[in-house]
């Protein structure tokens, strides 16, 4: 039986606080899985930008669609395998994916399209665009990983 809250001693309070700290560890493995997925999502979007410069638009779209199917399968596998969703992981993943998409659609793609129309597209420009697109997802992955490491 537990003592009612009215009879908690300082020692019991300390024990409960220690237990709370020990219990809230979560599963580092699950955190790494979600971080790995977020990295893959960022790299896939960046590769899509590079492919648009390397091959025809149709080929780039087909390759990116294939990568999206693989990513979806990866996410489904994580859903089957992971036993926890570490704290703030979903929020970080959503913010990373949204920011990467916004950078890709609103900044990088219009800039590269305009530069390709006047023939000034260069590899450094394409690579910088790819890095800019991948960055939000990569930062989100680092934050997910760090949040597990600091517990």
């Amino acid at each position: 039986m537990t003592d009612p809250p009215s009879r908690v001693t300082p020692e019991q309070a300390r024990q409960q606080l220690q237990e709370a700290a020990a219990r809230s560890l979560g599963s580092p493995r699950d955190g790494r899985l979600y971080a790995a997925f977020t990295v893959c999502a960022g790299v896939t979007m960046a590769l899509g930008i590079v492919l648009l410069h390397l091959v025809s638009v149709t080929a780039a779209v087909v390759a990116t669609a294939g990568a999206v199917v693989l990513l979806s399968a990866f996410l489904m596998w994580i859903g089957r395998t992971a036993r926890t969703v570490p704290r703030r992981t979903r929020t970080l993943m959503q913010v990373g994916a949204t920011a990467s998409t916004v950078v890709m659609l609103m900044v990088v793609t219009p800039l590269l399209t305009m530069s390709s129309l006047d023939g000034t597209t260069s590899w450094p420009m394409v690579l910088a665009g790819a890095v800019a697109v991948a960055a939000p997802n990569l930062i989100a992955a680092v934050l997910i990983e760090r949040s597990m490491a600091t517990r």
Partner: protein
Amino acid sequence: MTEADGRHARHRLDEIVHAPVRFSIVAVLAGVDEAEFAFVRDTIEVSDSVLSKHVSRLEDAGYVSVRKGHVGKRPRTWLALTTSGRQAFERHLAALRTIAGDDPLVT
């Protein structure tokens, strides 16, 4: 140690969270957005029925939400702390920290 309103910190302890098994459940869920029922059961080392009973109590209090789903044909149950559950746990921990700072017995 007394609060600004003159009441002792023990009055801020949450009766629902205070029970050992429920405290362990809430402590585990505080570290995650969501955890599988079996993960919580294995972590706090209780039986399915004991965990079920305490989760129901926490759910009735509005502290825990239960989501049922399937992975393939296998049913899976996910547990998560609600916002009010998280707030209750934080208040409970704050009260414990205050009590832990006391030297004499708090009765």
